């Protein structure tokens, strides 16, 4: 799997160094269209063949039947998320559901820390939303703890995402339905996006991820939860493999207090639209003009 990335890169590098073909402006004439084409530039036909290749590879690697979807963004859909800080009680069930759904590294000796795309911050009620005094490592017998409230942070899927702008190889971009995605095979692991993201939502695979075959979620998306390799960045994709099938994201389904709201911003009847029209919502670090698609509110 990681070989695939390296191969694609190597072939591409050679081709580009050779200059002639790429400069001639005709990528179809390259030696191997898969290994020389960014996912974002492939047409549907190429993506489908690429996905088939991935499925074969994962089946061999994990010894399980897998399905890698390539569902494109649906017309008329722009995803957004809402989170009720009155109801979130910091139980971290969303974090667990996210890890299981999205094939994150479980960590362990030789594999570094487990990767979690959702960070639940504990804050003092007296201070309000004050990121300088937030505690992501709270370890309590029971939550909510007296005098505290909880603010889960994950990728905000900004409308004006700083992370995609800084990527030197355009391996990350915003999809038409609002989801910010990464082409794991194209990512060079420079981590510029991580430093650009003001929400700490991007995570880096410092080591080969630890994903036991029995814990693999076989329902994958090429832009979402397919297994990552060492040296690439990953992040929340609003569970693209679920949401593009019409399902709610895993964190939404897992939340035991029902604090999460998800839907299509372009559908006036959707829950998220009703939320924005009826409640006072706020954005994290709104002053940075990142224009997040993630709305916090007090129910």
């Amino acid at each position, binding site marked *: 799997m990681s070989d695939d990335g390296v191969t694609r890169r190597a072939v*591409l*590098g*050679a*081709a*580009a160094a050779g*200059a002639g073909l*790429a*400069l*001639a*402006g005709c990528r*179809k*004439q390259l030696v191997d269209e898969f290994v020389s084409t960014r996912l*974002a*530039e*492939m*047409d*549907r*036909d190429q993506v489908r063949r690429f996905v088939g290749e991935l499925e074969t590879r994962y089946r061999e690697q994990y010894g399980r039947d897998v399905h890698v979807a*390539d569902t494109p963004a649906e*017309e008329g859909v722009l995803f957004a998320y809402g989170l009720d800080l009155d109801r979130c009680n910091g*139980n*971290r069930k969303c974090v667990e559901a996210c890890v299981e759904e999205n094939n994150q590294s479980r*960590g362990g*000796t030789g594999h*570094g*820390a*487990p990767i979690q795309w959702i960070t639940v911050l504990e804050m003092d009620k007296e201070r309000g939303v004050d990121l300088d005094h937030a505690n*992501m*490592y709270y*370890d*309590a017998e*029971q*939550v*909510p703890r007296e005098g505290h409230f909880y603010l889960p942070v994950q990728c905000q899927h900004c409308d004006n995402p700083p992370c995609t702008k800084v990527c*030197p*190889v355009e391996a990350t971009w915003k*999809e*038409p339905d609002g989801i910010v995605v990464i082409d794991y095979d194209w990512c*060079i692991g*420079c981590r510029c996006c991580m430093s650009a993201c003001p929400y700490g939502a991007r995570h880096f695979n410092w080591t080969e991820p630890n994903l036991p075959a029995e814990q693999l979620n076989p329902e994958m998306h090429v832009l979402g939860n397919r297994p990552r390799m060492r040296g690439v960045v990953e992040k929340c994709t609003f569970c693209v493999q679920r*949401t593009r099938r*019409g*399902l*709610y994201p895993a964190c939404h*389904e897992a939340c035991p*207090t*029902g604090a999460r*709201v998800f*839907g*299509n911003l*372009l*559908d*006036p*009847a*959707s*829950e998220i639209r*009703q*939320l924005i029209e*009826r409640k006072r919502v706020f954005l994290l670090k709104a002053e940075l003009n990142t224009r997040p698609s993630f709305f916090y509110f007090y*129910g």
Partner: protein
Amino acid sequence: MRTSAHLLTLLGILAAALAGGCGGHGHEAPYRGALEVPAVFPKSAPDDVLPAEPPPFRTDAFPCSRCHAGGEETPDTAPAMPHAQHLAKGIECGDCHEDVTNPVLPDPEFCAECHPPEKRGGERVLAYFAAVTGEDGEITFPHRWQVKVKSPAHDRHAAAGVECSACHGEPSNGPFARPRSAVLMQRCMTCHTERNVKNTCETCHEEGTRPPHEQIVLHHAEQQRGCLDCHDRANRDVLHLANGTPVPFTESYRLCGQCHGPRLRDWKLGLHGKRTGSWSGAKEYLLCAHCHNPHSPRFEPMTPLPPPVRPEEIR
């Protein structure tokens, strides 16, 4: 090394773009589409909130009316004790039950005097005792929930001149004199009301032995509220609104919405309460009482999952 290769790639792509686009014209539109605002269309209607089949409530398994009103008496499963046959043969109650004001089951040996095990009927007597007594010899009840009634009740009823048949009915061939099986509380309540006797819960029931009510702690504006403000007096299998309209348990949100109007509105819009299923299609809605204990609606504290690994702990 890698980075330099990529920079070269970038240059290549840039040049290709400047040269007037790529050669893939015969293909479908690129995977990465243009970000344009499409036509607005609704996918779900806010009025369409009611679940087709709401998840079951406890009352389906054990209807409140079984104790509180109407309903059928549960048939006994123990073998029959033919009281009527004995009476027809001129055997009086007191011949077998030593003290009629506090009748207990005679010893098996006593019955064996007439029904020795080897003779006809003897086996049935043994089977009867085996069925109605537990390991410790105490009589067990075929109740699903054994409601313990305070013990001196029998004396007091006899002293107050209550006929045996008022509770036990006419001696039958059933396994017990009737109330030992499934006495309906309604019968007690009616009689107590008629005779102007106290009929609070504590009058009859031992503290803490009132299933399925023993776990109920009313912590929901308890200074202003009692059971029958929500539960219907006449039919305990339904609730009722403030104006008396009966409401099934499956529509309890109508009852809750009487006080919690804005919450009900939010719930109908999907801003309060949990929804699962599809953001664009069929959803499953949970009712208020699925998440909130209606008698004590505040959420209980939860045990959080462990925190993330601190950088210094990474191995």
